[in-house]
Structures are given as structure tokens and as C-alpha cells.
């Protein structure tokens, strides 16, 4: 049976009353409803019984037993303060309760100008209350507090994180602060407001609204509640202040109780949303508390939930609205026309009250009349939904035209009608007529239900449920300003929703609004997509904090502006396909606050389908174990295992791997953090590319205080680069079965165990992806490798050993060597003295005897490789000196006739070459590294490599070429041009060989058969881009191009390069590769600016 009674008219109530035996039945009495919609659904209609004067107060409901019990509890303890019960009976399925009518008016009306009288009355009340105190015990008080806490936690308003905080931090803190050694208790009416204290002219005082009356140990809250809601004179405030000993603690208690009352009366949906000011207020109120401050500092959730309460309580000041500046207009269900007069120049907001039940209101017409000058007409289309922020069609103002953005906003179930500032267009007061159709039916029926639990720049979280279609995810629209930015599917699983009876619990949604925010306020609205209704608490206002130091690389998130919002990308797939990700965290004696941050960073994920596998490696610090246990107790998604003895990070990680049940595992260090979207971004990518086995992201460092610095933007999967630099790092996510098959981490490589694991994973799969967003924050602490590359001692040997083992397993004749100068860098050299085949060096040349002499001399005097030939393609040399040089060296001279064409010269020589590999070489180069051919050939022999090229230096010694990246200067350009070759470069890009999109043909080695199969260099390019074109064709065939860092040649380019830039070649190159360039260079992270070539963030 429903709790809800159908609304009764006064005659209907009168008829019921007339049939019952309740006295008095004086002829001439009649009933007049005083409240149409009581908040308590079981006692939702009350009537005043009149004869010649009020004599009784009749309440009609279904089940008034609890109501009666509480009323009688209060009247028993305070018989002279309370109304008396005259009778109770049941009739026609209704319960009727008749109470004596309490005379008098609100306390403050009686003593508004008499503070002395007011204080005297308050004092009298307090004496009565004090007289009823009875002794109790701390245990009883603690029980009451805990029961309140459990009721609080039972609200669907909270996330599991919030509940954990309430149980583990907030309630113990309140217990400590509010329960004295010898507590007492008394009866409170439970809602002690000034308007519930009535006084008569003769000084008689009564207390009404006792439907929440109860015995409590926390009766001091009565006075805080009384003082909070009332505009009291100083004397009264001083009186109340003296009764409250610990204002911060009582404030928190008051907020919690108010939340319960509101939830009881309206459901948890009643509460309004975040406001930065209130957030700051809660924090500032509680932060000085030594026990609570650390937990609060690391707990944004509670402070984002609290403002929902806060806004309800303090909205006058915190939301920037002013109650006196608004008019409250009562509206009723059904069609109606409400008229009100607005004083000139003040009103921007009109509240339409009371809409205590969520519903729809449709503006059917709006007419604004300037009583000073005439009518201003605003035309709304018929059927314009109340909840829509969009301007209602064309707003027409006459006379004259004015820019007008009329906004209609519903704040939860308490709609606000905003009017623009009319002072500019009118002189007199305005008469505003609104034709409304108000409909409670849709939501009152309970078909659609939901709640928005958090509105913050990082996440919009909540849930939605359709009772008629419980298996279907409810579609939720997200509006930022007037823009619909996403339609979400409320289909993510949450255990608390299932426990609350919402189907299978797949009712949650989340969204990261950050990409749509800037430093100005943006209205946020979440609405049911199918009805346009605002979700409860679905309205707020957000902006990026201007005081927050936004790192330069913050665009890594903003890049998402160019792609669909994360929630949209996830919503393309049914929630049951969303992968479960097991986050494995090995723990050992972690500083508690960092451990707390690490775990909370998982709890704060916007993606719901994860589990946290905590493995403690026998920490000697007992507080670590306690902390872990506390977390595990508060969230079923946290798995915890304590190792019996300390066995090191690899074995501990493997222990976590053993009990991970997710399809994928993510590795998180115990003092690091995930960003809120981390797992969501990973999951979205895994859903879009289901073949992926391994995924890694960009990362940044953060210090002990959480400040970000030094982002590390990585290339897409670069297996050769990875041999030289442990660049994959964090966040690393891998398919669980693959990690298990690989045997997990190898304890012999502790300190580089994740790197070594990744090497072995790469032997098993090539399906390795990269998310070019910072998803991981790597904590720099003393002793951490993040703070100093030497901090963990010599890991170079371990790194070299891991690489060598990897090369050996793959059967590659390559040797790994630690870089001679730079830590944690590995270079590759030939492994054993095997014959590598003949190499043909092709040098197109014309005249330029000086360059040719230097080039040939360096080749023949410095090269230690035994088996090579040099083919000089003479494209029209007439200089005798040059001809003499060609004759002086053991070269093969090929003559090319016709106009010089670099491509044709090389293609010609390739046909004539006898070598297995070709080196395309400019005549203005000079060999520096004696074993240049061996090392280049070693790299070229690696599987999947199509071409290799060395480090080229200008004669000045600076870098001329360290690979080519796409997108620079609109086409492509040399990386690190002008840099110091002795530097490490961003992430070792100058120290180690790595994959690049293209190489210069000034010195490029390629297998001859591949060169021929690819059609050689494209001869349509007259001057430039033929090398980049060739490399991109190799890449199209699935081959990679390698920059080889440990081979150096000098390139006297400034001398040889000349003539005009060939724009036709550029146009041809863009014509062919424009889309590839626009798609971005996979080896040059999109977070780097394209205006420079030295890895500088945008």
C-alpha cells in the first residue's frame, strides 16, 4: 500500500471527520486546510478545526502511530509546552489525530523589538529543558551517535568513499568532541526552530512541530539550530553562544542531522549542489582540527557532498543570492497564471514555491509589462520545458530591440525563474505574468529517479534509474552553459546502488567536465535526456580555479577537447563489456599520507569497474597495516593481503597478481597517484581497440606536497627506444593472462622489475598501445628514483642485464652496453664478430671537390668495416679537381645525364650496387664514428626495421639531425636541430636509438632489396622531401625507421644547401601525406609544440 494519500479537499476531509466519533462536533464547525502537502508522507494533510475560533488541529494520514508516539513523548516531558492530544481514530482507511490548537505567534514576532524579553523567554525554555535532564553513559551516547552515522551512511547520497570517511574519521572525531565523561540526555522536539516556538501576549510559551521528537544526548544542537535559522539580536546570540561549548563540532553534527531530516522529508534528492564558497567554508571550519585536518585535506569527496547540505542551509550567502531580492510565488499542480510585480532595478530572480515534489513546469507564456512605459513582451514557444536553459525561442522586446538572454532554470525541485536586468530598458516596476503548466506526475510516480552526488571540475558523479524500465540505462544529458556536451548512459555498476534496491546496481554515471571549463563560471546541468527534467541536485556552477597553478602541460587533458568526452567514448559500449581493471599496489612501510593519497586516487576514479589489490610486504610499521585494513573494511572493491614476511617488490607484486580477478592489471606504486580519469581513459581505449594487450600512458612527477612538475610525454610503442630507455614507466596496464603467462615480475630484477616485465611482455605481444595523456603522478621522495636518477643506486647493471637477456631470448646478435656517461641509458652494438654482408655507399655528387675529398677521405681512412663499396653518381662534374679526386679513391663512378635529380641518382646507383645494404650519403658529410657501418647495420638487422640513420652534427658541433618528426613547419623537420649532442635530451632522445617517423637521406642505410621493392626514391620530387616520402612508404609497409644515437657523422650542410625552397615539392609531399601528418607523429607526443623541434610542451 502506498504511503501517499490522494490529496483531499476540505469537504472530503470534512466528510470523513463527520463520520468519525472524534469530539467535538459542535454545529457550525468547518475545516480549513493549512498545509496541502505535508513533508511527512504519512501525515501529509492537516486542517484547522474552526467553530467560532480555532479549537483543534486535525491531522489526517495513513499511519500516524510514530507521529503520535513522538508528539506524546514531547508532551509527556513538557506538558506545559506542548499541544495536547484530544483524540485519535481511524475512518475509511485514514487515521485522524486531533490535537489542541496552540495559540500564539512566532517567538521573534512577539519579541522582535525586545531583546531582553526574548532572552528571558529563551532562558525560561532552557530552564525547563535543563530540568528534564537525566544521567546517561558515554556508551549510550556513542551508540546514539553511531546509529545516526549509520542512518547517514545509508543515504544513497554518498559514495563508498564518503561512507568510509564518515565511519572511520568523522564519527570518531565527533564522539571524541561531543561526548563528555558524564553525559546526560533529554527530550528534544528534533526541529527546534524559532518559528516552532509560539508565544502569546501573556508570555505563555509553546513548542510545536514535534513529529521528530526524541530522547537525545545531543540536545545542545537545539540551540545551534535555533540560532542558525533566526535573525537574532546580539543579546540572544550571546545567550545561545554560552550554551554551545564546541561550535565546530556542533556545526558538523548539526549539518549531519539536517541532512537526515531533509532526506527523511524529501528523499536525498532534495539537497542542492556544490558551491566553491561553501566547500571552502567546511574546509576552513574543520581544517584546524588536528585529528581531522589530514583526512579532510586528502578528502575532496566529503567537502563536495557537504555543500549539498550547505547550500540548503546557507544558500543565502554562498550562492550569491539574496532572499529579500526575490519573491516567492506559490504554484500548484495544473495550469495557472501567476502574476507578480517586480520593483524596478532589483529583481533578477523569482522563485516559484513550493514545488516540494520533483516535477515539470512548462512555461506556456510569459508577459512582462513595464508599468512605467508600457508592455515588454517576451514570447516563449508553447511547451517550452521549464528545465531547459536554452533561450525560449526568440525573445521580442518592444519598443526597441535589446540583447536578451532569458534563462529559465530549475534548481532541483525548487525552480527559479531568472529575469534579465530590466533597468536598462524600463523605468517603472514590472508586472510579470507567467502562464504555467505544472506537472508533478512524472517524477512523483517514481518512474525516473536519480541523484547527482558530485559536481566538481574533475567529475560529475551520480546515478539514475527508470522504474518502468529497470534494465535499461537512463540517458542523462550534460549541459555546460548552454551547450549540450554529452549524453551519458547511467549504466555503471555500484554496489551501494544494488544494496539500495536499484536493480542490479548498474545505474551510475560519471563525466569529466574539465575540458569544457575555463576560468569563468559555467552553469552545469544534468537532465534526463528523455524528459528534459533536471536530475535532483543536477545543477551547479563550476570554473577552473584561477589560483590553482595550472601546469603548462595541462593541455594534455585539454587535448580531449578534440575528441569525444570520456563518458561518451565509454558509453559507446555496453557496461557489461567494460573491463574490470585490477590495480595492484605492493606496500611496504609507506608514509601514511602518501599511502592514503595513493589508495584514494583509486577510490576517486571516475571509471567504476576496478578492484584494488593491496599487498603488504610485511611492513614493520603497524600503522600501515591498520590503514590498509581500514580501507579494506570500507569498500568491497578493495582486496587486501598481508604477506607473512618481507620478500621484495617483485614477489609482492606477484602476490597481488595472483588474486587479481580483472581482465587487466594496472601497476601502481604505493606512494604514487592515478589521476581521476586514468582508468576511464585506459578502459575507453581498450574498448575501442579490444586487441590491445598492453597500454601505457604519459606521466608526471609530483612532490611530497602533491605539486606537479616535469611531465614525461612519451612516444607510441617504440621497442628499440625501450631497449635504451625505461620510458614506458607508469601507468602500465596489461592483460592479466599475459602477465601470468610471462610469470609476473622477476625478483632478480627488483628495482627495475616493471621494466624487465615489460621487456618480456613485448616478446609475447606487439599489441601495445599508448595514451598520450598524463594519467599517473610519480611521487618524488628521498630514496625514490623519481627524485634523482641515482637515488636508488646503480640500477644500470640491472637494466643492461635485463636488455641483454631480452636480446638473447630473441636470438639477436646484439650487445647491450651501458651509456658511457649517462645513467639509465643503454646503447646497442654488434654482438659478435659475424659477417654482416657487403655495404654499398652511394654518393651523388657534382663538382664540389672539397666536400667530396673530405667525405671520401673520412670513409676510407676511418671506416673499420671491411666489406663495402663506394658508388659516386656523377651528375655532371666538370671541375678537374673533383674529377681527380674521384680517380684517386677506389670508387665506382656512375654518370647520370640530364638535370640533377637526387632520387634518380640514388635509384640509378641502387641498380648497380652489389651490396646487401645501401647507404645513401651526401657528399658533404664526414664520418666520425669508425664502426659506423657495423652499428648501423646492427640496428638495420633488428626485426621490423626498414631504415636507419645516424646522429648528424653541424661543423660547429651542434645537432643537425636526430631523426625527423612529422608536423613540424607544416610538413616535417629534423629533431633537436641545434642541440648539444652531449645532452640526454627529453627522456634520452639524444642518448639512445629510437623509432622516428623519417630520416634524412644525407645518411640513410636501407637493405637493397627493400629499397628496390619500394620503388626507390620518388623521382617526382625535384629537390626535397624524397627521403621523408621514402621513409613514410616504409612505414606504410609496416617497417620502422631508427635514429641511431651511437653513430655520428658531420654534415657540412650549410655549405652544400642552397637555392630556393621548392614549394612544389612541398605541395606534392603534403598532397600525398597530408592526412598522415594531420593524424600526428606517433613518435612525437601531441603534447609537444609543433613550433619547435626540441620536445617542448605546448
Amino acid at each position, binding site marked *: 500500500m502506498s504511503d501517499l494519500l490522494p490529496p483531499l479537499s476540505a469537504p472530503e476531509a470534512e466528510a470523513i471527520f463527520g463520520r468519525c466519533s472524534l469530539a467535538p462536533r459542535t454545529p457550525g464547525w468547518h475545516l480549513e486546510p493549512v498545509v496541502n502537502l505535508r513533508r511527512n508522507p504519512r501525515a501529509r494533510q492537516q486542517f484547522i478545526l474552526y467553530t467560532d475560533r480555532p479549537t483543534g488541529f486535525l491531522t489526517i494520514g495513513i499511519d500516524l502511530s510514530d507521529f503520535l508516539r513522538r508528539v506524546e513523548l514531547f508532551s509527556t516531558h513538557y506538558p506545559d509546552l506542548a499541544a495536547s492530544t484530544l483524540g485519535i481514530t481511524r475512518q475509511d482507511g485514514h487515521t485522524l489525530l486531533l490535537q489542541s490548537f496552540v495559540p500564539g505567534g512566532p517567538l521573534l514576532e512577539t519579541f522582535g523589538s525586545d531583546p531582553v524579553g526574548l532572552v528571558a523567554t529563551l532562558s525560561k525554555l532552557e530552564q525547563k529543558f535543563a530540568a528534564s535532564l537525566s544521567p546517561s553513559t558515554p556508551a549510550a551516547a556513542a551508540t546514539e551517535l553511531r546509529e545516526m552515522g549509520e542512518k547517514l551512511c545509508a543515504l544513497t547520497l554518498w559514495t563508498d568513499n564518503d561512507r568510509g570517511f564518515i565511519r572511520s574519521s568523522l564519527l570518531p572525531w565527533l564522539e571524541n568532541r561531543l561526548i563528555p565523561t558524564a553525559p546526560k540526555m533529554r527530550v528534544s522536539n528534533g526541529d527546534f526552530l524559532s518559528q516552532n516556538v509560539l508565544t502569546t501576549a501573556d508570555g505563555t510559551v509553546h513548542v510545536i512541530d514535534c513529529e521528530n521528537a526524541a530522547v537525545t544526548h545531543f540536545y545542545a544542537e537545539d540551540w545551534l539550530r535555533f540560532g542558525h535559522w533566526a535573525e537574532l539580536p546580539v543579546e540572544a546570540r550571546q545567550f545561545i553562544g554560552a550554551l554551545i561549548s564546541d561550535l565546530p563540532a556542533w556545526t558538523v553534527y548539526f549539518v549531519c542531522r539536517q541532512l537526515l531530516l531533509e532526506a527523511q522529508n524529501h528523499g536525498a534528492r532534495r539537497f542542492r549542489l556544490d558551491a566553491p564558497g561553501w566547500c571552502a567554508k567546511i574546509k576552513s571550519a574543520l581544517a584546524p582540527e588536528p585529528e581531522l585536518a589530514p583526512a579532510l585535506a586528502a578528502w575532496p569527496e566529503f567537502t563536495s557532498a557537504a555543500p549539498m547540505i550547505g547550500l540548503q542551509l546557507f544558500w543565502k550567502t554562498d550562492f550569491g543570492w539574496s532572499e529579500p531580492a526575490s519573491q516567492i510565488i506559490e504554484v500548484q499542480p495544473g495550469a495557472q497564471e501567476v502574476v507578480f510585480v517586480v520593483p524596478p532595478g532589483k529583481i533578477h530572480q523569482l522563485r516559484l514555491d513550493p514545488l516540494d515534489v520533483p516535477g515539470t513546469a512548462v512555461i506556456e507564456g510569459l508577459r512582462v509589462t513595464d508599468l512605467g512605459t508600457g508592455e515588454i513582451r517576451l514570447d516563449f514557444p508553447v511547451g517550452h520545458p521549464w528545465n531547459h536553459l*536554452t*533561450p525560449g525561442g526568440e525573445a521580442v522586446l518592444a519598443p526597441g530591440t535589446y540583447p536578451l538572454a532569458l534563462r529559465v532554470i530549475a534548481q532541483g525541485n525548487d525552480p527559479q525563474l531568472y529575469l534579465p536586468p530590466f533597468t536598462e530598458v524600463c523605468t517603472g516596476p514590472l508586472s510579470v505574468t507567467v502562464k504555467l503548466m505544472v506537472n508533478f506526475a512524472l517524477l512523483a510516480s517514481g518512474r525516473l529517479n536519480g541523484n547527482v552526488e558530485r559536481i566538481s571540475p574533475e567529475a560529475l558523479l551520480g546515478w539514475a534509474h527508470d522504474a518502468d524500465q529497470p534494465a535499461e540505462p537512463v540517458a542523462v544529458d550534460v549541459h555546460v*552553459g*548552454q*551547450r*549540450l*556536451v554529452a549524453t551519458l548512459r547511467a549504466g555503471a555498476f555500484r554496489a551501494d546502488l544494488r544494496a539500495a534496491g536499484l536493480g542490479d546496481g548498474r545505474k551510475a554515471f560519471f563525466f569529466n567536465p574539465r575540458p569544457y571549463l575555463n576560468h569563468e563560471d559555467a552553469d552545469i546541468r544534468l537532465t534526463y535526456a528523455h524528459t528534459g527534467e533536471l536530475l535532483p541536485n543536477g545543477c551547479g556552477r563550476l570554473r577552473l580555479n584561477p589560483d590553482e597553478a595550472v601546469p603548462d602541460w595541462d593541455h594534455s587533458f585539454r587535448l580531449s577537447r578534440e575528441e*569525444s568526452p570520456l563518458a561518451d567514448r565509454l558509453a559507446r559500449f555496453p557496461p557489461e563489456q567494460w573491463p574490470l581493471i585490477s590495480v595492484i599496489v605492493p606496500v611496504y612501510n609507506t608514509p601514511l599520507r602518501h599511502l592514503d593519497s595513493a589508495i584514494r586516487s583509486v577510490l576517486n576514479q571516475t571509471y567504476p569497474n576496478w578492484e584494488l589489490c593491496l599487498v603488504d610486504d610485511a611492513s614493520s610499521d603497524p600503522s600501515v597495516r591498520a590503514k590498509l585494513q581500514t580501507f579494506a573494511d570500507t569498500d568491497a572493491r578493495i582486496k587486501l593481503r598481508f604477506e607473512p614476511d618481507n620478500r621484495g617488490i617483485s614477489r609482492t607484486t606477484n602476490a597481488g597478481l595472483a588474486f587479481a580477478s580483472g581482465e587487466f592489471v594496472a601497476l601502481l606504486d604505493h606512494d604514487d597517484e592515478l589521476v581521476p580519469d586514468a582508468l576511464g581513459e585506459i578502459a575507453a581505449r581498450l574498448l575501442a581497440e579490444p586487441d590491445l594487450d598492453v597500454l601505457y600512458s604519459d606521466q608526471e612527477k609530483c612532490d611530497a606536497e602533491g605539486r606537479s612538475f616535469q611531465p614525461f610525454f612519451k612516444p607510441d610503442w617504440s621497442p628499440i627506444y625501450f631497449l635504451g630507455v625505461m620510458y614506458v614507466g607508469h601507468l602500465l596496464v596489461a592483460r592479466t593472462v599475459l602477465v601470468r603467462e610471462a610469470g609476473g615480475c622477476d625478483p632478480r630484477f627488483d628495482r627495475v622489475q616493471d621494466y624487465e616485465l615489460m621487456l618480456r611482455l613485448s616478446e609475447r605481444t606487439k599489441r601495445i598501445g599508448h595514451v598520450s595523456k598524463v594519467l599517473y603522478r610519480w611521487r618524488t621522495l628521498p630514496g625514490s628514483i623519481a627524485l634523482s636518477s641515482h637515488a636508488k643506486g646503480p640500477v644500470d647493471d640491472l637494466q643492461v642485464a635485463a636488455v641483454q637477456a631480452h636480446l638473447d631470448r630473441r636470438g639477436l646478435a646484439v650487445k647491450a652496453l651501458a651509456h658511457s656517461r649517462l645513467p639509465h641509458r643503454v646503447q646497442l652494438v654488434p654482438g659478435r664478430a659475424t659477417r654482416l654482408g657487403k655495404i654499398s655507399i652511394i654518393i651523388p655528387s657534382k663538382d664540389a671537390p672539397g666536400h667530396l675529398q673530405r667525405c671520401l677521405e673520412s670513409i676510407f681512412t676511418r671506416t673499420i668495416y671491411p666489406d663495402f663499396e663506394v658508388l659516386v653518381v656523377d651528375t655532371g662534374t666538370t671541375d678537374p679537381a673533383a674529377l681527380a679526386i674521384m680517380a684517386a679513391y677506389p670508387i665506382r663512378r656512375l654518370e647520370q645525364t640530364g638535370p640533377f635529380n637526387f632520387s634518380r641518382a640514388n635509384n640509378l646507383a641502387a641498380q648497380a650496387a652489389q651490396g646487401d645494404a645501401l647507404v645513401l650519403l651526401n657528399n658533404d658529410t664526414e664520418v666520425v664514428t669508425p664502426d659506423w657501418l657495423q652499428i648501423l647495420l646492427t640496428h638495420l638487422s633488428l626485426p621490423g626495421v626498414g631504415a636507419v640513420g645516424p646522429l648528424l652534427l653541424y661543423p660547429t658541433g651542434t645537432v643537425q639531425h636526430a631523426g625527423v618528426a612529422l608536423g613540424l613547419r607544416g610538413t616535417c623537420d629534423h629533431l633537436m636541430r641545434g642541440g648539444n649532442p652531449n645532452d640526454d635530451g627529453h627522456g634520452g632522445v639524444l642518448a639512445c636509438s629510437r623509432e622516428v617517423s623519417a630520416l634524412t637521406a644525407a645518411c640513410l642505410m636501407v637493405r637493397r632489396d627493400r629499397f628496390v621493392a619500394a620503388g626507390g626514391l*620518388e*623521382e*617526382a620530387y*625535384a629537390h626535397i622531401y624524397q627521403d621523408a616520402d621514402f621513409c613514410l612508404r616504409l612505414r606504410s609497409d609496416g617497417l620502422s625507421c631508427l635514429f641511431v644515437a651511437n653513430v655520428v657523422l658531420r654534415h657540412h650542410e650549410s655549405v652544400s644547401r642552397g637555392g630556393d625552397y621548392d*614549394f*612544389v615539392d*612541398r*605541395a*606534392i609531399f603534403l*598532397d*600525398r601525406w*597530408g592526412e598522415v601528418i594531420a593524424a600526428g607523429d606517433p613518435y612525437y607526443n601531441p603534447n609537444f609544440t609543433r613550433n619547435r623541434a626540441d620536445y617542448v610542451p605546448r
Partner: protein
Amino acid sequence: MHVVFVSYYSFACNSGGHMACLGNALTKQGNKVTVFVPFNPASVALHGPVDFECREFAEYEAWLAAHRPDPQHTLIVAWTPREIVRRFVGTLRERLTCPYLVHLEDNEDVLTAANLGLSRDALLRLPPDELDQRLSVDDRLAHPHRFREFIAASAGITALAGSLRNLAPAGHRHHVFWPGYNPAFFGAREIDYPGRHALGIPDGTTVLVYPGNVHSANVSEVRSLYLATCILNRQGMKALLIRTGEDYVPVLDHTLHEVACHYISLGKLASQAEVAAALALANVLVQPGHAGPFNDYRFPSKLPEFFAVGRPILLPAANLGHHIRPDHDALVLQRGDALDIAAALRNLVADTDRCAQLAANAREFARRHFQWSEIAARLTGYYTSFLSDTR
């Protein structure tokens, strides 16, 4: 049956030519045809004599009063769902409650996005106000949301490419047809050497002719044709591109003066006869481009004429390129870029026998597939089915 076409432009465009030919063919088969254009209905004369009625949008009330068309026997065909058409059809249907169809020629999202300088994704994510504001400057663009609603509310669609059905709701009634050529102007013609001489084109030059306007959606592929011509000349082969039509966006910038040496423009031609004369100058006809959201959703309207005049044809691996026999009816370019076109032309032009065979095959293809009378017969059946539905 009375068919009322509503066009987004006057007859001075490719669609106008299609409507003129189709209108004549439908009339010959016993239907009554009226074409509403936003302006200049007299431009129908560009396409030769017509047997149907042409009206300007502004005349619709007088036309309704004078003709009182019977809704039971009248069908409106919106020629594209662009805003100017969508609005006029809405106005017309307030007074003439007959079913309407929407004819689709292009991926309207791509056209609108290109005209607004946006990516397609960016276009679809624009807030409504901004979208309205941007579209207000040119009502010959389709509104990405409204055009779908317009199609969804229609009785069915006709389309020049099967892929265009994706713009309509699943299961929406459809009829796909390729356009035809106007035999009054286009037919097999020998290379017009006198015409070439008049333009100063020396013998031995390989002439490409590209008739058609350049706009933001096709500028990159037309540029490929310019570059291919330049590459051929750089490689020692005399080649020249002849352009007709207007450039709504520039094809070349000031850096590409070398490319500009290898093309001449005849500008916007006044009649189909002049277009036919221009095509007669060509050795080879090339439709540049590559597969993608633009070419996959269109049928380049010049292709029937290309085939009809009998020249070797190079097609992209998209739209009609998927339906011909490669190396028989035409050559299909795998990438369709400048390097690809230049390489194909270099090989083709050197083989005169192959050129002749491809030209003959093209003519035969046109005879079999691009006849308006056959197209109109099929359309009459399709159109009539909607009138039956309403009874």
C-alpha cells in the same frame, strides 16, 4: 502524377542540369513537372528547351491559387535537404499536404563542415546557437540536425549513391539512381584540335579537362590534378590542365607559380554546349580524389558526360570507381593523389592503343548506364508508389 521539384539554386548548377533532363524525361512519360528554384527560373534555358514549368519560390502562392494541385496526385521532391529547400518545402506543405521525398547528392555534413571551415566532428558538436549563427550566412548549406529530421519525416529518399542511405533512418524507403547525360550536348567527339590551337596549345600536349567548380570540400583533390600536371611537365612530358567553372576557394597560393604555368581556365561556362566543347579538347579525363567521407557519399555529376564523350577516364577508388570494371571501363586510381595521377597518366599516354580501347569502352558504359529516359521510367514507378500509399 504531378512532381514538384524544389531546388536549392537556379538551374545554373549541376543539379539544375539533372533536374532539367529528368523533368523532360518525366514529362515525356506522361507526368506533370514543376520545378521551384529560389531565383532565376529562366536559367533553365542553359540546358536546352524544356517541357515543364519553372517557377521562382516567391511565386508559390500565386501558383497554388492558379493550379490548385491535387494532393492525392502530387509529390514534392526536395532536391537536397539544405536549409533553403527544407524551409520552402515546409512552407509549401502548409498549403499543399502531399508527401515529399528528399533527393540526396552529397554527404551534407562534409559539405557544411568544409564550408564552415570545421571538421565534421566539430560541426556536429557545435552548440545549437552557434550552429544557427554560422549557418545563417548561407542557407544553401544543410543543418546537420535539421536535415536528418527533415529526411526522417519524409516519405522516402532518392540518392545518387547507395552510401547516402546512411543519412536516412534505417529502413527508410529509398531509390538509388545514377544521373544521366544530356544527349543534346554530350556525345562521342573527336579531339578538337582547332579548338586547342585557338587556345595556343601545341600539338603533342596531353590535355586534361576538369569542368566544375572548386569549393572547400574538393579543393585538395583538384589541387592534386594541378600538381600532377606540373609533375608531368617536370618530368619532361608536355601536359596541360584546362579548367572550367569557378573557384570559391583558391586552389593555389602564391608559392606555386610553377604549377600555375601548366593550366588555363576557361572560367564559368554559360551553357552545356560550351562544357561539351571544352571536354572535346581533352586527351584524358581525370576525376581526382580518394575514398573518404566526401567521395564515398557522392556521384560526381560530371562523370556521365566524361563517359559520353569517349575519352580514357581515371576514377578514384570511390563512388563509381567501385562499380566499373577497372582497366576496362576506366582506370581506377588507388590513392588518387598527384603522384598517383601523374604515374598513371605517364603510363597511359604512352600506350595509344590502350587509350583508344578505354575511350570506346567508356562510350559503351555511358550508353548502358546514363540514359535519362530509363532513369525516369524507374523513378516514375518509385514516385507513384508514394501516391498509392496515401490513398
